[in-house]
């Protein structure tokens, strides 16, 4: 079977090269037959990649330990879900998964555009296929998932595989890579349409309209992927963190930031025909960063917890990244005339300019994260001295940037298009600002002294107020006309312009998340060594160790604590943290116990037996204020993005303000 799989990958590679060349030639020389045959090749490639994927998954599920990949990433004891997840658990499999996802996207693009965009489609196909060929080169020649274990010339099988790292055997972790990949890979589509429209100098914004939904979907996947990773780290790793500024985490954040900037600046092009060059730059940068992220994860350029085993794969990525950069830069520079802006900025205080600032801050934070991630490498190359750029650096640089972004989240949507009067500003911002400042004052009186946290809480209320006010004003107007109740009026309002109000809901999700981030300023931590019957205290919690047990089963040994919790003196149930040591992988894991509440989480981790006195257990206790709001915010963000995807009830056309150039006018005067 593995030979069939390898053969299918090879055939897919050949077809990929053909599809690339045929669509390019067909588009250039205007040969519909070539274009059609290239598009059919795209569908065939999907089939040719589904086959090896199915073979690999079957091998993982049935435990075909002749395959090196299966032996390294699966074992007999693993539940079927994680055997399946082992498809993307290692280097070779995940690259095949990447390829397969891209072929799915390419097939969907071809099928949905059979009668549309005929002029740019050949080049869209060509761009997608170029990417596909790159990954197929890796699948076929560099990191084949179908290598068999052999002694001499004889294929052998190991009795059992090494299995997936037990830390990763958690539902959110099984979901995290595929959602992230769906986001990464998905951005190839907007990029391909952008390139197609650049190559053909397609007039108008067809590519923007076509890829609008793609962009939101892939952005949603990227967000989900990042948030699942954060949720997993919080619930599984035993230290209560959700973000550690690890290079690979940063790599997933970079394209998300530029994609977010793109989602905003695209509105400028749709409504006003402005910022066309910038949008091209953003969409290319996002795609480039998606590939770059994959490169960072796999090449071992920077050290990271997440990194796959080091491999020679890095240089292939460097070449591909160079090609993307060169092609995108050439096309954009060569076609600047076609990307000319159709409208002018009418006032500095306007929605247009607020988008400029929003984009600046998003791209700047992207740059700051990229810079911090790569700085150790750069610095070592220049000065020859190794340095560290750890979490404190990123926090110090990005917290102020993030807070400014939060501020813009509140301000931007309330600026009117074209120009905003001072009276309008006062009307919109007076009460939210008063509320935000009042909150800061109250918190100061209550004894909160953390500067950034204070600013963050104030801004959260400010932004939340502006968003609620927008819904309130709109719903009131609808109520006045139709007499519906508030809920029906709000739904009606949202349905009329789903992107606008869905966007507000997403903003609300961001506000909730910032609330959760700010809570981290007040984290409490205590590590204690306890025997049965001991009591200890953290924050408002009195904890008593009721029981300490140990045990053993065929999969792992375990140590278990039962801890009684009293909150403000009142009984609040028990928490049972556990520590496991998996035998086959020789890996320890924590089953943390969390008492989740809206105001704070109590988080207990059984860290092990004390080295000094083995009759004592080491318990790490944490109180994390407001952390639940991050997960509430995530859910809100997802809900808001889904609203954006529902078609609006009222179809909107955006008539463009025509530019009447000065020269023409003077000419008219003269005549």
């Amino acid at each position, binding site marked *: 079977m593995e030979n069939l799989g390898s053969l299918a990958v090879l055939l897919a590679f050949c077809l990929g090269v053909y599809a690339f060349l045929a669509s390019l030639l067909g588009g250039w020389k205007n040969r519909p037959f070539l274009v059609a045959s290239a598009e059919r090749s795209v569908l065939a490639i999907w089939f040719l990649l589904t086959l090896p994927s199915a073979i690999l998954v079957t091998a993982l599920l049935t435990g075909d330990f002749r395959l090196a990949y299966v032996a390294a990433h699966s074992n007999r004891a693993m539940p079927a879900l994680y055997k399946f997840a082992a498809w993307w658990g290692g280097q070779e499999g995940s690259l095949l998964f990447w390829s397969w996802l891209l072929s799915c996207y390419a097939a969907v693009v071809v099928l949905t555009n059979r009668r549309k965009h005929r002029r740019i489609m050949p080049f869209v196909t060509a761009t997608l296929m170029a990417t596909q060929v790159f990954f197929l080169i890796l699948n076929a020649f560099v990191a084949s998932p179908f290598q068999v274990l052999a002694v001499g010339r004889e294929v052998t099988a190991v009795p059992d595989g090494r299995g997936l790292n037990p830390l990763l055997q958690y539902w959110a972790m099984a979901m995290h890579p595929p959602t992230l990949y769906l986001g990464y890979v998905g951005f190839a589509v907007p990029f391909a349409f952008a390139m197609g429209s650049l190559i053909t100098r397609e007039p108008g914004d067809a590519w923007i309209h076509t890829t609008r939904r793609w962009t939101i979907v892939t952005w949603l996947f990227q967000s989900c992927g990042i948030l699942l990773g954060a949720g997993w780290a919080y619930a599984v*790793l*035993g*230290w209560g*963190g959700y973000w*550690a*500024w*690890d*290079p690979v985490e940063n790599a997933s954040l970079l394209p998300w930031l530029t994609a977010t900037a793109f989602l905003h600046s695209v509105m400028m092009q749709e409504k006003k025909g*402005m910022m066309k060059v910038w949008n091209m730059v953003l969409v290319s940068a996002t795609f480039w960063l998606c590939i770059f992220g994959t490169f960072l994860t796999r090449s071992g350029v920077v*050290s990271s*917890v997440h990194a796959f085993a080091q491999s020679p794969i890095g240089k292939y990525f460097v070449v591909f990244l160079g090609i993307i950069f060169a092609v995108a830069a050439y096309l954009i520079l060569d076609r600047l005339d076609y990307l000319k*802006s159709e409208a*002018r*900025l*009418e006032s*500095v205080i306007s929605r247009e*300019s607020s988008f*400029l*600032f929003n984009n*600046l*801050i998003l*791209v*700047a934070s992207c*740059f*700051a994260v990229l*810079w*911090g991630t790569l*700085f150790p490498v750069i*610095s070592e190359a*220049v*000065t020859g*001295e*190794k*340095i*560290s*750029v*750890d*979490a*404190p*650096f990123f926090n*110090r*640089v990005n917290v102020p*940037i993030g807070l400014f972004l939060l501020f813009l989240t509140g301000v931007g949507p309330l600026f009117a298009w074209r120009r905003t009067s001072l009276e309008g500003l006062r009307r919109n911002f007076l009460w939210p600002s008063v509320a935000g400042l009042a909150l800061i004052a109250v918190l100061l009186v209550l004894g909160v002294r953390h500067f950034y946290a204070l600013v963050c809480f104030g801004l959260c209320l400010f932004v939340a107020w502006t968003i609620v006010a927008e819904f309130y004003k709109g719903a009131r107007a609808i109520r006045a006309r139709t007499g519906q109740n508030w809920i029906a009026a709000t739904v009606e309002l949202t349905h009329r312009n789903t992107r606008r109000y869905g966007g507000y809901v997403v903003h609300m999700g961001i506000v909730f998340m910032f609330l959760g981030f700010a809570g981290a300023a007040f984290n409490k*931590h*205590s*590590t*204690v*060594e306890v025997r049965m019957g001991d009591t200890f205290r953290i924050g408002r919690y009195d904890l008593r160790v009721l029981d300490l047990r140990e045990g053993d089963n065929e999969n792992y040994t375990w140590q278990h604590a039962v801890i009684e919790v009293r909150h403000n003196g009142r009984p609040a149930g028990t928490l049972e943290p556990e520590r496991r040591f998996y035998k086959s992988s020789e890996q320890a894991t924590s089953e943390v116990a969390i008492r989740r509440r809206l105001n704070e989480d109590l988080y207990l981790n059984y*860290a*092990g037996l*004390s*080295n*000094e006195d083995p009759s004592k257990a*080491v318990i*790490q206790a944490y109180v994390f204020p407001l952390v639940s709001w991050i997960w509430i915010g995530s859910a809100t963000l997802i809900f808001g993005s889904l609203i954006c995807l529902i078609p609006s009830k009222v179809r909107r056309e955006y008539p463009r303000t025509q530019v009447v150039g*000065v020269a023409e*006018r*003077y000419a*008219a*005067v003269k005549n």
Partner: protein
Amino acid sequence: MRRLKTSALVVLLAAAALSQTASQLQSDAVRRVGVHLACLCGTCKNTVADCPMLECHFAKPARVRIASLLAQGKSDTEIIEIFVKEYGKQVLAVPPAEGFNLLAWTMPFVAIAAGLMLIWVFIQRFRKPPTAPSAVPDETLSRYRDEIEKDLARLD
């Protein structure tokens, strides 16, 4: 002889520190110094104060050492210098703000400044040009204006 005495004292203090429990190693004083030092265990990106691994082969001995140096009456900066002497600048959690490494801190903000300038240029270039003197005679214009006013009045 004096050196021998000092090193004996250090060993003694270190031994005392080693026998400290995990909870004592997480004292506020140790944390205060530990947040400036990177955990060089090779997997995490945390500081010595925040490394979550109980038996981390770097963070734990580092904490013991900080505790013993503090017990000797060393100041925070002295302790950090001792670590830098041993492990190089890599042991600092953030790049020191000097020489080339200053760039690490300044570049993000330089980028923002550059971006602001770009926006400024953009606004200057794409500002709507001031309306040229109208070629339409004033009386025609005022006739239209009156009409608009009338229409608006009717709307109310």
